[in-house]
């Protein structure tokens, strides 16, 4: 489990890594919106080209992106099969008794697959090039304006950063408890239904207890150091937008405009 790729930060040195997290989040949002503009194959070609160039710039490498895609492979195949069976429009390509394939089914599936591929690549690019803490700083700042309408942006950001911080800890803890119970003869893979339930209980109960214990300890530690969410806090790390960040954001906004243009023309 510790070799999970999704959402993991890769400490490299690149132009993308050194971007302001706020700019990166905005760029990601723009590109995610762009994916849903129905600009046909031209639109997807443009987006794929952009993602390709950014991956190269970030130095994280295409294999890493493909690895991140792996967990989705099953879903893509599933979608493909469902579409084949359900969509019966367009030209008939192939027929065998009750079974038939139409070209529309293939197009629809390709659209979905390309969209998924783009979404995963773009989010992976963000998480692989941004430290979790920078990411939450960015989110906090971007949510800042909403404070006026009562949105506790600092609290939301703190919650996100604590959650991110504890994901690896919880994975480790899970492995530890699974090993301890395996030593007591628990078989997490096989067994009858009731045995399965018992074995899952033997994992979940200790996991919850230790998670609550950790939460309590952390809360006390934060309070002991004077943390109160409503207080004004200064920051150790100040975010600064640079020319490259601004250019990148304008570029991504233009991509949306461009794709809208293509969509109207087509």
């Amino acid at each position, binding site marked *: 489990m*510790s*070799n999970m790729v999704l959402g993991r930060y890769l400490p490299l040195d690149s132009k993308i890594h050194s971007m302001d997290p706020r700019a990166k989040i905005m760029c990601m949002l723009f590109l995610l919106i762009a994916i849903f503009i129905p600009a046909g194959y031209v639109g997807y070609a443009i987006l794929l080209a952009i993602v390709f160039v950014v991956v190269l710039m970030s130095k994280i490498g295409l294999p890493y992106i493909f690895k991140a895609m792996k967990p989705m492979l099953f879903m893509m195949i599933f979608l493909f099969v469902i579409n084949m069976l359900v969509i019966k429009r367009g030209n008939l390509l192939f027929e065998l008794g009750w079974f038939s394939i139409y070209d529309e089914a293939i197009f629809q599936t390709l659209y979905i697959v390309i969209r998924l591929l783009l979404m995963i690549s773009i989010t992976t690019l963000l998480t692989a090039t941004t430290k979790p803490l920078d990411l939450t700083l960015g989110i906090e700042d971007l949510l800042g304006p909403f404070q006026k309408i009562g949105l506790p942006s600092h609290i939301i950001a703190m919650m996100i950063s604590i959650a991110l911080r504890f994901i690896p800890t919880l994975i480790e803890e899970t492995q*530890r*408890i699974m*090993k*301890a*119970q*395996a*030593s*007591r*003869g*628990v*078989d997490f893979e096989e067994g009858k239904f009731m045995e399965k339930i018992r074995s899952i*209980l*033997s994992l979940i*109960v*200790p996991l919850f*207890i*230790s998670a609550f214990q950790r939460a309590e300890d952390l809360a006390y530690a934060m309070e002991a150091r004077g943390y109160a969410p409503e207080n004004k806090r200064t920051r150790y790390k100040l975010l600064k937008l640079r020319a490259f960040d601004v250019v990148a954001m304008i570029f991504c906004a233009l991509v949306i405009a461009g794709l809208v243009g293509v969509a109207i023309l087509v």
Partner: protein
Amino acid sequence: MSITFKNLSHTYNEKTPFPSAALNNINLTIEEGTFTAIIGETGSGKSTLVQHLNALLLPTAGEVDVNGFVIKADEKIKNLKSLRRKVGLVFQFPEYQLFEETIESDVAFGPKNFGIEESIAKAKAREVLELVGLDESYLNRSPFDLSGGQKRRVAIAGILAFDPEILVLDEPTAGLDPQGAKEMMELFKKLHTDYGKTIIMVTHDMEHVLNYCDDVILLKNGEIAMKSDVKSFFKDDLTVHELDVQPPHIVDLKRRLTACGFAVDEEAFDLPSLVASLKGELQHE
């Protein structure tokens, strides 16, 4: 019957961009019926080593033979359960594995997993709880209402309940008060002498090594730096010095006495015999 490691190596995250070697070409034999201590500084690979004994971790190279049960790199294990029943492994801070509503059923959980009938498992639970010093009044209490030390006893009872031939303990006294730690060690001694269990214990406490163990294995950076019987390990104060081990008080005291010019009996490993030998020498003068 014995436990044998042959050219065993273990690398965590082997097939990823971040591999980390924890054990390197371990060759080792532990005889049946011994009480063996595994020592070494933090991160030296002690926990990694002992988790091979019941196949929680598999070697990435080499093999380990546990009383005839061979675990090899890249080979699927048959009959995993019978191995885990033979080797009872008590994790560091085992109290985190408790989950049942009552202490009795938590302790009986292990035996039931190994296919022992419910009523026999419960009887066994009673017996081992008695052994770890918790009487009948605890049977129907929740394990979560106990103190830390009591929880640890329940957790250890949960392993003893299925009667493993080999008992592996990873820092069983970590975080206990001195009295609780002593009682715990007395329990392991009893299991060793009265019940004939082979015991392998990871520890940082040299007093426990000296007072309870037969053999000692010193790990350093994932390799075996030394294996010998406890007495000669502490007699040879060069090794103790060079290998960076904090010696037990009595060994330290003997070294200071020797430095002051006393001829100290090499075989004296407890206060009474040390005093006796010193007395003899003083009377000579």
